[in-house]
């Protein structure tokens, strides 16, 4: 199905919230297997909105959108969970479940997929250790710092080894050193095969990593000149 290798394929897509004018217009954008993109633009430009269409939180109000080679514009509701399970999302506002422990939060994608805990317990532990939260596995999100919550969210996005990783401002709450390590992590994951899109304001890091950049302004998505170009 993805014979053309397209993970994400927008064709003239638009997104409008309610009766408001379109937040995003004429989005024509493709992401292939193994590609990496940064997504930049001023606050309120529509970065999160674009990602929301990608992780199937909003359907485009206009145009066409395919995900993993399947038409997602008119996909029936029943088809969505299977698509979503192939995506790992780090939400801008984390969206952890406050009544669950860090461990249970990270395990959530496995649990809703109906996988037995015995099969993912070690993975989850390893991942939490790996983001430096091995000692806080039993803590609930409200007792964690912003940066710690962000790392739990990161672990949750990665636990199912997704084909597509979407990260919305994943370094917003961590110190510069941790930011750099997280960004390098995405680059590493990308080398291992996952397609990655990272929305960020951190232009310094974007520049250091030298990956292609998509820029949103005035509701339109364009390739930023200079930085990276085609991958």
């Amino acid at each position, binding site marked *: *199905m*993805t014979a053309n*290798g397209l993970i994400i394929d927008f064709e003239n897509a638009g997104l409008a919230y309610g009766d408001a004018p379109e937040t995003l217009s004429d989005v024509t954008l493709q992401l292939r*297997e*193994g590609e990496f993109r940064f997504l930049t633009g001023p606050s309120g430009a529509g970065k999160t909105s674009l990602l929301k269409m990608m*992780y*199937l*939180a*909003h359907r485009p109000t206009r145009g066409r959108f395919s995900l*993993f*080679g*399947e038409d997602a514009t008119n996909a029936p*509701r*029943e088809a*969505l*969970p*299977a698509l*979503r*399970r*192939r995506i790992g*999302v780090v939400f801008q506002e984390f*969206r952890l*479940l406050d*009544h*669950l422990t860090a*461990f*249970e939060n990270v395990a*959530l*994608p496995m649990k*809703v*997929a109906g996988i037995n805990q015995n099969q993912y*317990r070690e993975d989850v*532990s*390893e991942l*939490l*250790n*790996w*983001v*430096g939260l*091995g*000692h806080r*596995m039993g803590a609930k999100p409200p007792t964690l710092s912003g940066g710690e919550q962000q*790392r739990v969210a990161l672990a*949750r996005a*990665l636990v*199912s*080894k*997704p*084909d597509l990783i979407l990260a919305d401002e994943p370094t917003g709450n961590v110190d510069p050193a941790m930011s750099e*390590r*997280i960004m*390098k*992590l995405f680059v*590493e*994951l*990308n080398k*291992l*095969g*996952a*397609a990655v899109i990272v929305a960020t304001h951190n232009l310094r890091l974007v520049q250091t990593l030298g990956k292609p950049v998509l820029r949103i302004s005035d509701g339109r998505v364009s390739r930023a000149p200079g930085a990276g170009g085609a991958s």
Partner: protein
Amino acid sequence: MNRPQISRPEVTETESLSDGEVHEWPKPTLFARLRREPLLPEAGAGGAPLTAVIAVISFLAVLAMASVLVINQSASKWTSELRSEITVQIKGADAAEIAAGASAALRVLEGTDGVIEATLQDEAETAALLEPWLGRGNVQAFLNIPALIEVKVTPGLRRDLDLLRNRLAAASPGATLDDHAVWHNRLATAARSGQALAFAVFLLVMAAACAISIFAARAGLAANHDIVSVLHLVGATDDFIAAEVQRRFFVLGFRGAAAGLAAALIALALAAAAFRTGIGADAFLPQFSVGGWLILWLFAVPIVTCLVTALTARLTVLKTLRQQY
């Protein structure tokens, strides 16, 4: 669906974000696995009020079902007792004529197949029956009060009384046979309508359980809107979420229903005791009791209640979710 051939990233091969020691998540004990944290903490729009409402509903449902059973059991016992009894009444101008008619009727009865027992009520007994209407002491003044013969008959004879009726009329012109048919029919009708009423109450109470469960499931989903959308976004199906809510409602419903059953059983036991020591002593009324296997029906009521609650919640969730993206 063909999945693209992508080598999935193995996160742990890359440089760790941590520099500390490695920790392990403990294996859950059996107890912890049974008592796992619900994914939707408020799925019942607050557990205690819902449990209380279900308890009341289950209490009423058990009482309604108990009424159905008591009426059913008592009515069938009562009517079968009535059915085996017929009464022969002998009227006459004076006591001598009545006595002669009575002994003629008794001879006929004794010579009839299917008569188990025929007892002539003695005058004092008959007088005692009439006392409430005529006043104590006055009874003897009415010397021509009819004689009554209580007859126990087999079901076979009970089905066809015409021959006996004719033979009695021939032997004793003043004799009439009363098979209590009118009384029997009235009793059966009353029992049937009483039962229908009790069953209607039971159904209404179940409808209330459905309504409260729809209401609570909707409120629960609204209160958990954020959590539900996170569950969706990490790949949960509607069925998964509905099953979570259903499980939660089943547990709450079970607690409430069990409490309601316990309260109803206590209430029934108290009512039965009061009945036995009070008016229950009257031999005319049958014993009100729900015994033996029938009590199992009462235990089925709370199970039905919490199944109804849980299934309604599931369907409500599925319907509500389908209206969203």
